[in-house]
């Protein structure tokens, strides 16, 4: 099966999981040409490996997006303006 699958894919012009993975960053951001993106979408639709991997990849990005707010030190801006004032930058 392992040997036949790559050959079959080539005949059917289907991308491999590895190829889809290589362009995953562009795929999730919709940066690929429409025909390439279509080929990948079709592959992912019936490939459980890619589907699950893509899910985790997108999940990672979502977790990162959710991570922006961290506690800022008290008076961060005021301290900085004070620092710059002492050095003659701001009034």
């Amino acid at each position, binding site marked *: 099966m*392992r*040997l036949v*699958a*790559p050959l079959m*894919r080539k005949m059917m012009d289907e991308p*491999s*999981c*590895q*190829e889809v*993975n290589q362009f*995953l*960053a*562009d795929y999730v*951001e919709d940066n690929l040409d429409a025909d390439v993106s279509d080929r990948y979408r079709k592959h992912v639709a019936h490939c*459980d*490996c*890619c*589907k*699950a*991997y893509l*899910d*985790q*990849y997108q*999940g*990672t*990005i979502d*977790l*990162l*997006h*959710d*991570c*922006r707010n*961290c506690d*800022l*030190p008290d008076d*961060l*801006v005021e*301290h*900085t*303006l004070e*620092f*710059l004032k002492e*050095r003659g*930058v*701001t*009034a």
Partner: protein
Amino acid sequence: MSQPGDPLDVDALLAGDATAFEQLVRQESPRLFRVINRVVNDEDEAESLMQETFLQAYQRLDTFRRESKFTTWLYAIGINLARGSLRKSKRLSPLDEAAVERMQPDFSGGMYVDQAESWNPHRLAELSQRRELVHQAIAQLPDDYRAIVTLRDIEELPTDEVARILEISNGAARVRLHRARQALRKLLDSHIRP
């Protein structure tokens, strides 16, 4: 009176206008602090590096060439100062380049060697320490990977702007970002799917 989110008055900035510079500080301090802090993992050091970033930007205003956004130029100064600080302190990240390489998926005949399993959304939602988990995972990555994930995926700056800040090509930025996300995926997977 300017409001946060107002576009910067670059002409006034370049003319050395103190009010414009104060607006820049008010507008960019939180984000610049977050970015530097992710790279150096030390709040006190991050605050002092951020202040130094604004000072250096002010002293080098005449070197800004308008080939990029003003903030891109500012963040490049900040990232370089953060890197310099790490070099000086000789603090090493827990993971090196070889470890990041090992966390990339393996393929055989174009197919995944290990099949991933989708994360259970309920388990993900229940995970109370999600942010802490992500924070710790990022902290393990080598500096260059921490920087790109922070700029692109946490602060959500466009990839071409991120590439300019890090002074690398768009292609190199995409590759590094992809490798960083794949390493993080691997680190998170072991906690999310025990």
